[in-house]
Every structure is written in C-alpha cells, then in structure tokens.
C-alpha cells in the first residue's frame, strides 16, 4: 500500500520526490544517532545481564522515538524555509507546493524509510529456505511483521500531517499528542509475542489518526459521502 501511495501521489511531481527522499534521509539520520547512543550504552554495560540488556533496549527504543520526532520537527523547520524560498521565486506569488502536501510527503518519507528498515531483511530471508517459528516462536511472525510495518507506515504519514499542522498553528497539544501516540505504538510492540496487545491498539490509533488528519486537511463527512457516491 505504501508503494501504491508513492506511485499515485508522489511520483508525478519531482519536487515531491525530492521531499520524500529528504524525509527518508532525516529519518535515517535520527536512526543513526539513536543507534549510536544505544551502542555506546551497550558497550558500556555488562553483556551478560539479560534484564539490563532488555532495559537498555527499551530505553533505546524510547530514545529513538523521541529523536525521530525531534528530527521531524527539524525537517519541518527546513521545509518552512524552503517554502519561503519557493514563494519568493515563483511567478504568481504562491508556492508550487503547499505545506500540507509537504507534510504528507514528509510523513510518507519517514514511513517508507522506517518500514523499509523494519521489513527488508525479513523479506530477503523469506526468499530463502526455512520454517517460520521453528524454535517455538510464533508462526505468524512474517504476517504480523508485515501488518505492523504497514500500520507504522500509515501512522508516520498521518503523524506527519498532524505534526506539521500543529507546528503551523502553534498548537502544542497536537504535537504532544503525536509524540505520545508514537511512544504508545512503540510501547505496545513490547508485548509482542502477544500480538493482540500490539496490533489491535496500533490499528485503533491509526484509525484515530487517520480521521483526525482527514478532518484537519479540510475533509468532512459530507465530502467523504460525496466521494463514495462518485460525485453524484
């Protein structure tokens, strides 16, 4: 689905592709920094202690989430400046791309990169011979990973829209809500062999975020209804 989003909405306009790749780049940098921190922490601690390692991992995840949001903010700042530049140079005084579109594209960029990093090694392994869950782990590993990745990509997209909207209108509670949601989703993956605990809340949160983003982007129930009825 993410690829579909990309093809239909982003691939047409070159500016959007650039914003997408830049978004992916920012996510990557945030990942790099957070893994650096984690690495240092692990090296500095005792490798034998299971609980400590788990704790460090949890700390790493939370820190990474916070860093991702921080980088989303930085990216927002950069895009603001870019929009001002584009407006100044365009012919009719308005920029070729609006901040909402940028928000959307940035969200997709983040999401794609995050999804790719989560999924791609798994996908490569699925090509090879093997049995899922042979050591007593869940047999649904691949399926749930796929679903989780998809929900995360969508969530990143919606969070992008919400986040940028919050920054535009200076509503700090929106930004905080995004951060809290992200933390919640990551946290829910901690109970992961128990898939009910992670997938269901994530999907619920995604539905909420989707509705919120849709409303923010100017949609309404009436629009939706009209669209579904094919503009009749």
């Amino acid at each position: 689905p993410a690829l579909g989003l990309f093809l239909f909405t982003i691939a047409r306009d070159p500016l959007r592709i650039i914003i997408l790749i830049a978004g992916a780049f920012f996510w990557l940098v945030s990942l790099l920094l957070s893994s650096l921190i984690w690495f240092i922490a692990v090296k500095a601690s005792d490798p034998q202690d299971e609980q400590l390692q788990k704790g460090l991992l949890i700390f790493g995840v939370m820190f990474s989430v916070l860093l991702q949001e921080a980088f989303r903010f930085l990216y927002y700042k950069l895009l603001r400046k870019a929009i001002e530049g584009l407006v100044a140079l365009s012919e009719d005084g308005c920029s070729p791309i609006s901040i909402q579109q940028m928000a959307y594209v940035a969200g997709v960029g983040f999401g794609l990169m995050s999804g790719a990093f989560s999924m791609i090694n798994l996908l490569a392994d699925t090509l090879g011979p093997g049995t899922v869950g042979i050591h007593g782990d869940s047999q649904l590993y691949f399926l749930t990973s796929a679903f989780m990745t998809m929900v995360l990509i969508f969530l990143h997209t919606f969070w992008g829209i919400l986040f940028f909207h919050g920054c535009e209108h200076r509503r700090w509670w929106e930004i905080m809500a995004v951060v809290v949601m992200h933390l919640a989703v990551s946290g829910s993956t901690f109970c992961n062999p128990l898939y009910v605990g992670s997938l269901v809340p994530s999907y619920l949160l995604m539905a909420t975020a989707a509705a919120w983003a849709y409303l923010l982007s100017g949609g309404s129930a009436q629009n939706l209804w009209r669209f579904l009825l094919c503009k009749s």
Partner: protein
Amino acid sequence: MITFMNNSDSEEEPCNERTSLMSAESPPVPSYQDGLQASEAGEAQARRKRRTGSNRSPNNIADGEMSDSGVPVRESALENEEEELTLKYGAKHVIMLFVPVTLCMIVVVATIKSVRFYTEKNGQLIYTPFSEDTTSVGQRLLNSVLNTIIMISVIVVMTVFLVLLYKYRCYKFIHGWLILSSLMLLFLFTYIYLGEVLKTYNVAMDYPTLFLVIWNFGAVGMICIHWKGPLQLQQAYLIMISALMALVFIKYLPEWSAWVILGAISIYDLMAVLCPKGPLRMLVETAQERNEPIFPALIYSSAMMWTVGMAKPDTAARGPSQQMWDAAEDGRENHRSPSHADSQMSETRSPVPTRPITSLEELEEEERGVKLGLGDFIFYSVLVGKAAATASGDWNTTLACFVAILIGLCLTLLLLAVFKKALPALPISITFGLVFYFSTDNLVRPFMDTLASHQLYI
C-alpha cells in the same frame, strides 16, 4: 585463467583510461546546462527587450524616458525570471538525474546479489598490485593506501595525457582511443557478464545465438553512443556500460583499497575541478576558447532539445530532436559558461555550431537537461555495490547508502544552481555514502537486529 588475467590487464587499460576520463569528466555539466539556461533566459529577455524596443520606437520621444526606466525594471524582473527558470527546472533536473543513477545502482545491486562471480576474489588489477591478504591490520592498511596512491596517480597521468592531447588537437587519436575502449567494454565485458548470468541461472545458450546477440548489442551500442540514436536508447546504453564498469571494479578491487580509493577519488575530483591549475579546469578553458564541444560518449545527458534552427517558429520542425542541436546550442552559448558540456555527438556537430547569437527566433521551446559524467555513475554504483556485497547488514546498509548518495546528488545540484559553474559531483555524495555505510554497518545493524529479534518497532 592466465588468459583471462591477461585480457583483464589489457582491457583494463583502455577502460581505466575511460574511467579516468570519466572521473575527470565527472564534474558534471549541469552547470553548463544551467548556464545555458540562464543565457537562454537572457536571450529571451534580450528578445523581449528588443521587441518592446521596436514597439516603443514609433512612439514619441516622451516615451523614451519611460522606456529607459521601464527597461531596467524589466531587466531586473527578467533576471529574477531567469533565476526562477533555473530553480523551477531544478527539481525536474534532479529527478532526471535520480532516475538513471537509481537504475544503474539497481542493476549493479541486483547483479551482485544474484551472480556469485562478482563477489569472488579472482585476482587483482595490475593497478592495485599490493594484496590485502596479509594478517596484520597495519600491513593491510599500508597496502591499501599504496594501492590507492598507484591508482590515483594512474588516473591523474591519464587525465593530464588526455588534456595534452586535446590541447594539441590530436582529435583523431582521442576519438580512436575512445572508440577502442567503448568497443572493448561493449563486447568483452558484455560477453563475460552474459556468460556469468547464464551460468547462475543455469540457462544453456549456444555459441551462435550468443554471438548474434552480443554482436547486435555491441553494434547498436557503438552507433548509439558515438553517433546518433534515440535518446532513451543512448541513455540505456550508457547506464549499462557504467554498470558493467562498476561491476568490474567491485570484483577486482580488494576491500579496503576500494574504500580508500573512493575517498581519494572524491578529493581528487574536488581539486581537479576547482583548482585553477587542475587538468579539468584546463580542459574546460581550452574547450571554451575553441568554442567547441568536447568528447562524445563520456557524459550522460538527460535532455532532449526541442528547438530546431529555423528562421521562424515552425511547428513542423519542432520534432523530438537529436543531440545535435544540443551541440548547436553549445557552440553558440559556449562563451558564457564553462563548458564541460557536450553531448554524445562527434563530427556531425561541426557543421552546425556557428549560428549567430542574435538569431533569437530559433529559440522556441527548449527542454534543458542536465549532464553528469559517466565516472560519477560508476563510482556511485561501486559504492552501493560494495555495500551490497560486503556489508553483513545486507539490505539496510545498501538502502542507507542509496539514500545518502541521492541526497548528496540533490545537494550538489542545489549548489550548482547557486554557483552556476562546473562542479564536482563526487565529493558530497561519496562522503555521505561512506559515512552512512560505515555507521550503518557498525552501529545501526546491531540495533536493528536486536529490535527485529524481539519484534519491536520504533
């Protein structure tokens, strides 16, 4: 085996020359194109000025002052427009370059991942005589540094040689050299590549069919690259030969040497383009003095020229063009921009270029493109291919390097739009790529692996 090694030694020479040429050419020509575009818009501006001038002249003199004050205002407005044009086309140009670079990288990565041949160590080039099989780290490092020094000096010597040849107008020699090396690339490397791919997928092919296929491929390639041909076919061929070259490098360069060479090449590129006595600078200036385009078959061009040199705007003549017209533009606009430019045409250009600058009616619709040297393609692909081949984090590292290189390319093009001169395309991208490769391989990989094993998501 010995025959193969000999072959590879001899074939490496022209190919290395080619590489050196390409890395010498790697300062991309987009600046030229942008410069063209700017001068293009400047021409448009001049045209408008002229037209309004002619409109105003019948009016009385009272309007003369108005026109005087009007013109500077219009000039500055048109200058802004000029810049806008540059930037508006900017995004499009970036994408026009993203696509071939991406394609090249995809081809290289796909081959590396599937065909075993290119990751086996079967010997080294004569340019990198020091082996890396030593046990101690220090010795290995020393060997790789020595390898790099030898390789870079070979490249520098070749580049200087080329510049000298160009300066003393030995065009036939240069053309012959280029033709020979592209011949070698197209036929020999394709043969090896095809052989290995068929071996991997266990597909049988008899020699006559093979001969036919390779002969057709090679012949069409030669024609397309050195003479005329449909733009997309030409681009496809250039991408393929870049990929083949990159694969050869990946196979024959030992690991640490490869990374050190990549770093050294980007520094060399930076110096060769920006220092006043650099060979590439001299090449540019000489070409500029003589008002002619440089070499065929070494630069990737993404543009189609849609103008035709007719006296009036003739819709019939505005067909999808050939690169020749690129050369026409080159010839005309040469004095204004550093011209690394050329397109893939050779002598067919010479009758065309001398159109006077004032024939503005010819400039109807133009789709300006961006040019990137083939050496850049090759080294980007070498970086990504090496990442795919040797990184234990597999796809994550490859993906990270890919994004890093694309962003580097973006930034380089942005700088190009700002500075409007020939810029080296290698340093920024390769730096990002190297940084990301090493950091992803060492830092991110354990993190992601641990996360994936617990199925945690960030």
